[in-house]
């Protein structure tokens, strides 16, 4: 199986070279359908990933072996349960993304076509790595490739600054993760996972690793307060790339958290290891879901919702850590199972939502909620698929989002079994915040679907929108179908995650996961989605039948009563958009209730000076707390450092030569000291 995967990786690298070579060919003559080749190849590779992931989950782990014999470093690859779970997700998300790209992105510029397969390959390499070096190699390649993709549309200034910010955070990740792997390394510098697992770190060394990994992987996953890049970079990238970034790349960062903190650091860590994960997870969940209610760009909204969902996943991992530290194995399995299931479910429904938003952007030429509306008429397929995704993101039963959030809430409700009173109080607060963020996400999703697909078109472009071609529709219908399926079958999915759970908490959950659903506690708390779905279907059909027998068929149509607004002028064929709910208006209550304290949201009426005929305007805005807490101090630090560095310009030649010489001597002295120890 590893051979097939290695070949697939090689295929992706070759695919990356194709567009570069094709661009070198002389113009004129028959051009190669480069986009078709690249995206078709990526689709194939993604399907191989998904199949191999599923195969390893069903058939058991594959032992490590080197990627290429005789290379400069060992480059061990392996496929255990945890890798396989994430690889399967990567395959599914990649397939949907490539299908979408086949319809819409074949004419993309060369840099995008070249970076796309590399991005896919780098993520797969990170997941397959069986030693720290390969892991870092894949992770950094993933960061660079995705940076190129974020910068794809670099004509616009805002995209350039988005890419710059993204690069800064990517470098931060690297700065933190390299020493973390170094600290993890077993004596003798062996960074293979088996060696690290044999001698897990303890005491202060483990605490430093925790801190470094939290910052390094947390910045990539978009955990508050390191999420500033995410709502800016996602909209900048092309839609199929955004789907891959949100569906798979944040999950790769979560994989790093799970692999390094739960698996490699061993089960002997204390309870408080879960606390930073819980705190950052809860903060991400609330800030993300709240921002999703005030953002006015569809993709930014979805990006904020990703922050929220990653927060929920990390809460699950943190609980698993804490339960494991308190020797509550069954509960640790429950929490880790909730996290794994939510990783898969969120990856799929968020891919669906981002691709759907991409379809909207193609069809209606805008992502802004205030320029869309009524798309359900022109884009029925997209609307239906998006409705499934929105329902799952809003955690409505019986869809997949509800299943994993149910498990997570069950784990949180059991958190009091960790006897420590301080932890109980913390878990109580986290439970309240998780429930709050789930409800906020419901509001945000209703806002998204209602403003984009329902109502009347707000612009002529929205009125003329149409569904995409069939491959793009399949790219939406596939994750939609899987979202429904995984929602109905959380039990079998949890059983499938067995291998991954063994890696994370050394605990199995087979007795909890049945075909019909999931059971927790001593069997009294259960979620049986098939039963719920059947009940809803039977009752719905019964109601329909009973009502239909007594009521006249069909409906009459008439103009809507528009709240007493005057009739729209002639040139507004779809009605006056200002009489419809607006993005800012729909978010207003939540903005006022929670946005004022948490996001420093403000709104004031700017009156023109007396005598000026300009209209009064409402000026509204908000500031994410991370801007003031993280970005602003860092910017000040950068300014201070650059001011200091400026002084280097005034040095004489001799002084300039002194600098590298001094550095060299200092490094040699360091080596001598280290060797002497």
């Amino acid at each position: 199986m590893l051979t097939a995967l290695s070949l697939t990786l090689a295929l992706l690298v070759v695919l990356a070279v194709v567009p570069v070579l094709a661009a070198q060919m002389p113009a004129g003559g028959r051009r190669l359908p480069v986009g078709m080749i690249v995206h078709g190849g990526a689709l194939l590779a993604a399907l191989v990933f998904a199949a191999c992931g599923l195969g390893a989950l069903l058939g058991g782990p594959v032992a490590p072996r080197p990627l290429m014999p005789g290379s400069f470093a060992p480059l061990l690859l392996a496929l255990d349960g945890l890798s396989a779970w994430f690889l399967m997700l990567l395959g599914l998300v990649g397939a949907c993304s490539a299908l979408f790209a086949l319809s819409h992105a074949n004419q993309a510029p060369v840099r995008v076509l070249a970076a796309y397969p590399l991005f896919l390959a780098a993520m797969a390499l990170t997941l397959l790595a069986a030693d720290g070096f390969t892991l870092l190699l894949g992770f950094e390649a993933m960061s660079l490739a995705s940076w190129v993709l974020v910068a794809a549309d670099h004509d616009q200034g805002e995209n350039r600054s988005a890419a710059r910010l993204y690069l800064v955070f990517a470098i931060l990740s690297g700065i933190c993760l390299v020493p973390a792997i170094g600290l993890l390394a077993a004596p003798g510098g062996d960074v293979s996972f088996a060696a690290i697992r044999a001698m897990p770190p303890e005491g202060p060394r483990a605490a430093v690793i925790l801190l470094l990994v939290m910052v390094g992987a947390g910045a990539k996953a978009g955990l508050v307060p390191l999420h500033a890049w995410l709502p800016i970079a996602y909209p900048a990238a092309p839609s199929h790339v955004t789907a891959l970034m949100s569906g798979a790349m944040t999950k790769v960062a979560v994989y790093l958290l799970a692999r390094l903190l739960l698996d490699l650091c061993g089960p002997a860590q204390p309870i408080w290891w879960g606390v930073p994960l819980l705190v950052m997870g809860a903060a991400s969940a609330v800030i993300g879901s709240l921002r999703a209610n005030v953002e006015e760009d569809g993709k930014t909204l979805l990006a904020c919702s990703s922050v929220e969902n990653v927060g929920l996943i990390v809460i699950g991992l943190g609980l698993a850590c804490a339960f494991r530290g308190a020797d509550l194995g069954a509960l640790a399995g429950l929490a880790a199972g909730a996290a794994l299931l939510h990783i898969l479910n969120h990856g799929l429904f968020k891919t669906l939502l981002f691709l759907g938003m991409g379809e909207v952007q193609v069809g209606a030429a805008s992502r802004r909620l205030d320029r869309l509306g009524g798309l359900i008429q022109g884009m029925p397929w997209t609307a239906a698929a998006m409705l499934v995704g929105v329902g799952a993101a809003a955690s409505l039963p019986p869809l997949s989002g509800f299943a994993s959030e149910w498990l997570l809430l069950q784990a949180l409700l059991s958190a009091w079994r960790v006897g420590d009173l301080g932890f109980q109080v913390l878990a109580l607060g986290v439970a309240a915040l998780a429930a709050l963020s789930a409800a906020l996400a419901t509001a945000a999703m209703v806002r998204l679907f209602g403003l984009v697909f329902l109502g009347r078109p707000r612009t002529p472009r929205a009125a003329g929108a149409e569904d995409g071609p069939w491959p793009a529709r399949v790219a939406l219908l596939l994750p939609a179908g899987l979202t429904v399926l995984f929602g109905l079958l959380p039990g079998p999915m949890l059983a499938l995650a067995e291998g991954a759970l063994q890696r994370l908490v050394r605990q199995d959950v087979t007795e909890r996961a049945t075909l019909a659903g999931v059971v927790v506690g001593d069997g009294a708390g259960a979620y049986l989605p098939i039963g719920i779905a059947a009940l809803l279907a039977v009752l719905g059909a019964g109601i329909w039948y009973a009502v239909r027998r007594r009521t006249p068929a069909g409906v009459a149509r008439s103009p809507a009563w528009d709240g007493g607004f005057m009739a729209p002028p002639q040139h507004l064929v779809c009605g006056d958009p200002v009489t419809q709910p607006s993005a800012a208006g729909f978010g207003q209550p939540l903005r006022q209730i929670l946005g004022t304290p948490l996001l420093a949201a403000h709104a004031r009426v700017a009156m023109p000076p007396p005598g000026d005929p300009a209209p009064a305007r409402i000026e509204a805005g908000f500031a994410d707390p991370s801007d003031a807490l993280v970005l602003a101090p860092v910017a000040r630090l950068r300014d201070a450092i650059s001011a200091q560095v400026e002084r280097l310009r005034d040095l004489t030649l001799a002084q300039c030569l002194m600098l590298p010489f001094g550095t060299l001597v200092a490094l040699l002295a360091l080596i001598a000291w280290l060797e002497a120890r």
Partner: protein
Amino acid sequence: MSFGTPAYDVAHLLGGGVLLLSFVLLYQRRLDAVISAFAVQGALLAAAAAWQGYIQGAAGLYVTAAIAFVAKAVAIPLALRLLLGRLGLHRTVETALGVGASLVAAVALVGLSVLVILPITAGQAQALTREDMALALSVVLLGMLMMITRRNAISQVIGLMSLENGLILAAVGVTGMPLVVELSTAALVLMVAVVAGVVVFQIRDRLETLDTSLLDRLRGG
């Protein structure tokens, strides 16, 4: 004495009721509603003292209960109402901190007092006493919070008296605490003095504000 016994449950419930009323005090905006809530808190405190007198068999606590009921549930609220009516004070409380924020702070304070009391009293006292102490400390802290977050003198006084309710609650909960009756009486006298003082100051403030507003009006614009 543990869970499931009526003695424990009722005492626990009454203590919790006093704490709940502290939250109501923080939640209410209108002064007359604040005064009503304070009266109910006084009545619950009296009931808690009487119940403790019954289960501890201490007759002195009945005196405390009677004093608490007469003074806190009847007399002082009545006096405050008269004051409100006489002075025609603004009926809405101005808050220095929003209601939502002060409620969040209140829950955090309860959590804090639980985290402080339980480890300190570990293994020293009965479960009921320990829990009562946590509740009482919460009531005291909430009273202080109310004094800080309200601008109006009347609600500040009510905050002070609710703080004192917390002290009494702590005193009656501890078995064999000496001088409970004397303590509560003394505290009551102090409270009456404070209320009287506030009446005087309110009237003076009132006259002053009247004065300045008159002056403002005279100044013209």
